[in-house]
């Protein structure tokens, strides 16, 4: 397992000379969402290279070599996932972009789509070429209306410019004799833009596909995995927005360049999101393996009030207590797993000392309770019904020590028993809060009032 300490040579700092901003280069720049802006800065060169100079297998090999792991939260190696597609057999194949960014604490994909939509289109085009899918499906979270508009306009622009549609990068025959290059028919590829209707579960890949097909957004049974039976039961590969955008740079600059950044098991750069009481919350692009300290202090300007915990990768990841050891942990997949948490989407949330932990967890649970799809028993009855009621009871000052035992048992029962990871997403942070902050729960049930004042967030 790699850490900053035992691998001093690893690039972990945003300030390393070998590192430059890639994914977020255009974000925050006025007018960056236009095709003109994007092309003027080398846009679609990577796609042209992939489609005209590389075979699909070469693209997949390049992505494999880069070590890119899926940026949607689970961190599955992207190149490996692409290679799971069955051999071409005449059936329609799909490349799906999961832009249903709904995890509380995550907001990176939004700006990618709002300010750099063409980067995503280019990434999907390259991925479509790699798996030989001629239809891309872009499933945008319903609440992201600006992102939707920008993507809609960008797709129209790309179509008008021949970057989507029939014969993308088609070429005429050129030269004579031995030097001649034959004509290429180009690649047929188009993107269907689909808006979600506001359900967190649609971030689960198979629920997303059901939703796209017009069905109820319940997760599907796996196997068959999407590569075997995805959209409309046809071979499908699905990735996150950030993954597609990373592919653009991997193709442009080579897998080796990408793999030179990051740690042993987590390569390249990552968009970390920082929220909570810090001086400069926001999205920061850093090499994999950067530490929390670098993110929170060097870039985020440090906490504005004393902190007691941080959530490392979006609300579903188990929180870590605030300490020097935690702050010096590199933010990569392996390290987070080792300390019992997850990198998730890289959405770091700082929890201040003044925040009642029980209340904070009640907020998290309330979210998952609202978003449970209701398909399986533990999630519908545990996550969506019982657990939020227990928190209500605790916060009303009616809880007992037995209730805490019950909640811990309930959370144990939720772990790994549900149909999809949503129940785990709720159970894990709750379990971590019990592990690190049981004293706050105990204070609440013993005194009938929380140790720290709770903050009302919703108008009654």
């Amino acid at each position: 397992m790699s850490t900053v300490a035992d691998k001093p040579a690893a690039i972990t700092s945003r300030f390393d000379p070998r590192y430059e901003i890639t994914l977020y280069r255009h974000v925050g720049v006025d007018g960056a969402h236009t095709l003109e802006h994007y092309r003027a800065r080398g846009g679609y060169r990577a796609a042209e290279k992939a489609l005209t100079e590389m075979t699909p297998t070469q693209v997949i090999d390049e992505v494999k070599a880069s070590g890119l792991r899926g940026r949607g939260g689970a961190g599955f190696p992207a190149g490996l996932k692409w290679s799971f597609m069955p051999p071409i057999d005449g059936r329609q194949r799909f490349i799906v972009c999961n832009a249903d960014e709904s995890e509380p604490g995550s907001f990176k994909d939004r700006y990618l789509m709002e300010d750099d939509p063409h980067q995503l289109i280019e990434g999907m085009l390259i991925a479509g070429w790699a798996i030989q899918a001629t239809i891309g499906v872009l499933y945008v979270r319903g609440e992201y209306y600006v992102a939707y508009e920008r993507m809609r306009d960008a797709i129209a622009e790309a179509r008008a410019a021949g970057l989507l549609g029939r014969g993308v990068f088609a070429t005429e025959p050129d030269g004579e004799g031995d030097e001649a290059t034959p004509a290429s028919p180009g690649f047929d590829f188009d993107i269907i833009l689909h808006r979600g209707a506001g359900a967190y579960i649609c971030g689960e890949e198979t629920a997303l596909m059901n939703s796209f097909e017009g069905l109820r957004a319940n997760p599907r049974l796996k196997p068959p995995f999407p590569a075997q039976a995805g959209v409309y039961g046809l071979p499908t590969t699905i990735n996150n927005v950030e993954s597609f955008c990373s592919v653009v740079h991997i193709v442009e600059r080579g897998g080796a360049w990408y793999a030179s950044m990051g740690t042993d098991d987590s390569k390249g750069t990552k968009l970390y999101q920082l929220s909570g009481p810090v001086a400069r919350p926001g999205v920061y692009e850093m090499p994999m393996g950067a530490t929390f300290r670098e993110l929170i202090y060097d870039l985020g300007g440090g906490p504005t009030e004393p902190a007691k915990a941080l959530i490392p990768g979006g609300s579903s990841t188990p929180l870590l207590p605030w300490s020097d050891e935690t702050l010096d942990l590199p933010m990569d997949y392996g390290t987070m797993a080792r300390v019992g948490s997850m990198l998730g989407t890289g959405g770091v949330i700082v929890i201040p000392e003044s925040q009642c932990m029980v209340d904070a967890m009640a907020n998290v649970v309330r979210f998952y309770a609202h978003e449970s799809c209701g398909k399986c028993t533990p999630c519908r009855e545990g996550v969506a019904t019982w657990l939020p009621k227990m928190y209500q009871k605790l916060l009303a000052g009616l809880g007992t020590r037995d209730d805490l035992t019950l909640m811990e048992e309930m959370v144990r029962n939720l772990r790994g028993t549900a149909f999809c990871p949503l129940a785990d997403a709720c159970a894990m942070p709750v379990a971590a809060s019990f592990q690190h902050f049981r004293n706050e729960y105990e204070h609440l049930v013993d005194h009938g009032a929380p140790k720290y004042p709770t903050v009302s967030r919703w108008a009654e």
Partner: protein
Amino acid sequence: MKVVVDGVTLDLPPGTSAIDAVFAAGSDVPYFCSQPYMSPIGACRMCLAKVGAPRKDRDGSWILDEETGEPKIFWFPNLMATCTTAVMDGMVVDTRSEPVKAAQNGMVEFTLINHPLDCPVCDKGGACELQDRAYEYGEGVSRFVFDKRHQEKHHALSDLITLDRERCIHCKRCVRYFEEVPGDEVLDFIERGGHTYIGTLEEGLPSNFTGNITDICPVGALLDATSRFRGRNWEYHHTETTSLDDASGSAIVVDGRTGRIERIKAGHHPEINKTWIDDGTRFGHEYADAPDRVRRPLVRHDGRLVETDWADAMDYVAARLTEVNGRDVGIAIRADATLEEGVAARALADHIGTGQLDHAPRPAGGVIAAGGQARLEELAVAGAILVVGDVTEEVPIVDLRIKDALRGVTPPSLFDHGAPIADLRLKERAPRHAEILTVAAPLRVDLMRHAGRAAQYPAGGERAFFHALTALAEGETPADGDLGMPLEAATAAVDGLRKAETAVVVLGGWVLASLQATEAALHFCRAVGAKPMLLGPMANSYGLELVGVAPSHARYAYGGMLTGAKALILSQLDPAIDPAVAERLDKLELLVVHASFLTATAKLADVVLPAAIGYEKDGTVVNLEGRMLPVRAAPVDAGESRDLTGFVKAFGEAAGQRLEGRSVKSARRWLKKGLGVDLDALPEHGGWAPAKRGPARVAVAVHEAPAHGGALRVPTMVRAEVLDRNPHLRAATGGLALGLHPDDAAALKLRSGDEVTVPVAGVPRRLVVRPSEAVPAGLATVPATPDEPVGLVPIDLKQIALERRALEVA
């Protein structure tokens, strides 16, 4: 594959689910969402178990455990839902260790927190999967101290099914059932999370197969409205028998209590109906207890029917029959009489010495194809199917088996514990191979929604249709218009039938009604190498034709005896609904009616003898495949009702004769001798009827008048002749329908729901107007009954009389 479950080693075929491995090993895990013949979805999370498997090294050898030297078992990090896990070679399943128990216990607790636990007042109590599993796997105590979810109770999903949303545990069996089995997507989940509930659109449950969801509901959420609040499950007497509702021979379970039938549930016959029955079969039992049921024999004295007993009544019949020449006596029985009753009817005819014996309805084309016919199991795996008729109404189980073929999954092999609990080959929303199915009918029928090709030929054009298809098959160009579909579609259909390994042509009543059409159809089947499946009109049409309950001459057939005989013995038939027939019956020297109800014919009779209905008799029927199936009497109080064997026994006693067929046992002796079948040794799931027919008598075709007229008598899933005695079904269907094209209805100034009386083939029929685009302009549809078999008949729409206007909703 070698699988070890709780220490028991099994050898199972690949593709078996782990839950079936568990049950095959004699172990147990609870489950709510899995259901035989439906896709496993892993939603209830009850069947969790600890599962592990050995792994292979890169060189292909098993990774060995260093201590034991055996292949090392790698346990899955989480407990696995066994219903969605396929067995692997060397897999180990543990259902008994502490973590498994804790998880199962936790799932029961979760499942129960929002369940009302109103078992004492719940109709499912005592037969409830949740109740059983909660006892077996639950803690017995709930730690949930909050208000339970409150949702609608007593919600009428339809006139036949009541939903209690608080009891629902969201197993999704009912929702999946509609999509997977009949393919009628009429029910779905609404809302999400803890608020999820099942519901429909405004139209209720438009499907012929809705009642099955009450069987498969693991709790008391979905209940059969006909049996709600009628009894507790442990009070019911369950009788496993065969449905006499149609020719499918579906297995049913009749639940009776204190001498009354309270409900019917689907039985399990893996090769016929699996675990499904249609709504007509399930809900159409209330007539057994109708107020006008005849419970004692009646003899006419001074113009009035007076109650008496069987001995008295039969003395009277025997005495009066001596006054008539035996040859002038006609005997007709309904085509759902059992084989044994058929023997009894033959014995009676032989004793009286008449050739005027028939069963009705008996289609001109017969119901047994020479050279064999398709079995339902063949239909379910057929690679090409042509249906001529409306099977969804005629024999609904055939419709379901066609849908099995569309899904393309072969029937599962059975375990000792029955059909696989989780057949991993079945998937939700599986693609359907509509291209293998062609459906033809003179009007738009429901199965056409699922068919790759639909043909609408002119009414009465069955013979021409098959001639045209045969011409195509023989490379000729058929006459225009006979096919009812484009030439390319017909060519594709014919090619499909010819090329398929198993091809089946299903012939409905409209084809069988005509001998010529039937012959044309069978000729076509031979031309393309397809197997015919003939849909007999009633439960034992096949058997009665086999036994030879048939006249000795064409003019002695049922229709002929109604005009020619001087005395008639009619069992369960009601020809007097036709006023012209009634007039003739009134002049007979003797009219003996064996009937369950005081029908129009019974009212004219000299003697009325109470007849047992299908649930009240023992015997055997032969279904449309030629499979002999047992009929068993439920313990029902039907007064002095008897079946025909009882009739013949009483008659023999009065006449001083021991007639063959005087009891089921006696009839079976005759069948053993005559047909070579030993019905006392009939296997549980029935046996194949012999190809050989009964001795002596030969089935003779009835005289075939050319079909003409403006009304098509159509088969109905609900039995039209008893619909008024089935209050729930009557409410659900809205009464017997007069189908008209909307333009025709408008021209007659009729609205949907208007009640009218209209003469159809001379019979005044009271019907409810149902304008429908499915009916072609210029044609009217009316429901068929045993006395008014399917086919094209005249209708006098000029004489239509409006009896009651439909209520107009502002």
